[in-house]
């Protein structure tokens, strides 16, 4: 916990910088608004203002800087505006009993969470099975491992629209499955690499000991390799779930999805409501934080009960 104080200070500094940046970012919007309300600003028309730098505008119109902090459609909203929007579209909706309405981020977060968890399950399963195969058969190690690495240098986003079109063509309804495939694609790699390392973690002397016990290959796997790999597994699961969430959001972004946090970002962009984009972004960040923290807790509890030193 000795890091709490520095983290808070740095967060405070970031918030301060953010507030400072709002003024130059929003001055044009504030002046446009003031002009429409009938105030006299210098230069007078939006077109003339395009020619002038934001700093000049701020010096010439000091009275209107404050208005930039409370615009409806700011280029850069203040943290408080984002917080209010987030509160309104989550807790506010829940209080009115509409937590699952289409305008509530709880509903969209739930859609994203579901796809993330399916992708995470699928990716983890593929990763673990692949790791078991790689550890046991040299031919798998030699032929699969290079392609696993290459698969991650292929930008999955290029494939995302393809995956959705193909799965629609072969008759898969909805977007849940293609989204899960995309997130599994990003998620399996850290699990695979971590598990290969983990399953190979037992030392030669430990394996020899099991041989002197006349243990079969299966027993050696279950009683030595699997337990030894757990610390590695949890570490890579934490990376994996974050990657799965990124995959889901990428799967929602470019493809015209209508529900999910990524779709909220997309819709916010199309309808010109920046506050909705920012709220969805923060909601995604919170979701990522919660998921990683949950896995971290699970890791601590499991490893403690299995007697690993922390």
């Amino acid at each position, binding site marked *: 916990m000795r*890091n709490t104080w520095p983290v808070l200070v740095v967060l405070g500094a970031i918030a301060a910088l953010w507030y400072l940046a709002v003024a130059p970012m929003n001055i044009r919007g504030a002046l446009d608004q003031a002009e429409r309300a009938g105030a006299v600003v210098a230069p007078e028309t939006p077109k003339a203002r395009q020619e002038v730098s934001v700093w000049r505008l701020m010096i010439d119109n000091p009275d209107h800087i404050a208005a930039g902090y409370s615009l409806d459609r700011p280029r850069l909203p203040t943290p408080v505006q984002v917080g209010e929007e987030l509160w309104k579209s989550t807790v506010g909706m829940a209080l009115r009993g509409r937590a699952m309405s289409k305008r509530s981020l709880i509903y969209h977060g739930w859609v994203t969470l579901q796809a993330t968890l399916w992708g995470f399950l699928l990716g983890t399963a593929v990763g673990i099975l692949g790791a078991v195969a790689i550890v046991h058969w040299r031919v798998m190690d030699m032929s699969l491992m290079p392609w696993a690495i290459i698969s991650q240098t292929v930008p999955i986003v290029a494939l995302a629209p393809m995956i959705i079109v193909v799965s629609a063509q072969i008759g898969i309804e909805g977007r849940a499955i293609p989204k899960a495939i995309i997130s599994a694609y990003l998620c399996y790699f850290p699990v695979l690499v971590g598990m290969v390392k983990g399953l190979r973690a037992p030392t030669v002397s430990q394996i020899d000991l099991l041989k002197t016990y006349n243990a079969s290959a299966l027993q050696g796997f279950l009683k030595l390799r699997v337990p030894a790999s757990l610390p590695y597994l949890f570490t890579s699961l934490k990376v994996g779930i974050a990657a799965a969430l990124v995959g889901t959001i990428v799967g929602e972004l470019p493809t015209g999805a209508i529900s999910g946090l990524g779709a909220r970002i997309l819709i916010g962009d199309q309808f010109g409501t920046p506050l909705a984009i920012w709220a969805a972004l923060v909601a995604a960040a919170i979701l990522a934080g919660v998921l990683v923290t949950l896995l971290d807790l699970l890791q601590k509890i499991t490893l403690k009960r299995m007697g690993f030193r922390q």
Partner: protein
Amino acid sequence: MNALVFALVFWLGAWALNAALARSRWHATRPVRIFVPVLFGVTLLVLWEGIVRGLDVSPVILPAPSRVAQTFVVSTDTLWLDFRQTVLKGALSGYLIGCIAAFLTAIAIDRSSFLTRGLLPIGNFVAALPIVGIAPILVSWFGFDWHSKAAVVVVMVFFPMLVNTVQGLRETDPMQRDLMRTYAAGYLQTLVKLRLPAAMPFVFNGLKIATTLALIGAIVAEYFGSPIYGMGFRISTGVGSLSIDLVWAEIAVAALAGTVFYGLVAWAERLVTFWHPSQRG
């Protein structure tokens, strides 16, 4: 059906050959280590071709690799234009700016242990966030051309690079730093001769992670608005107009660019960190 049967037979044969090679006594030699994965990749392509031809899959759903290759050859001009716009202008410039900025920031905050302790947890957290979501905001700030794509890439690569560099700079042990002290080395000398070289494996780890992120960022940002060329633009419009073979050619370019980019960074890593145990093997 003949094509499908041929593909399956090819697959079994290639698999048997690979298994035999892996079990043979030459399995550790260099040609075999390269040949086995290449044959595996070729097998996948043959299977794909066989399935598409054997089952008569419509080219609108999944074009055969041979067809994609044809499209690739025919439309190299388009592909080159898109490649220049997305990879060279968007991804590469953003990658350079983001990585250099993160590297310099890491060296700057490294002097204060307070800042390091404050920024490292935040950086770790941000590196795990779905930052791609910021793309529409940056596109509306910086316009449709490649500048906004580079901006997305800068934001995406900054934090993984920062975290890795800061961690790398902490890699030296007290013994080594004390040794530099006894040589009367100043801060700058210690940094250049001891700590930066020791940090290089971590720096390159960050650089490698950033290569993939850079391409993802540049392509996603194009889905939110771009000039009428660029890989992301071509993919999203190609899917809409059912010119799927061009989309696959574009994906092949993206895959090739990603792999070459990664390979170049890995090659540079081998040159710079030749002393590290993982490179000596």
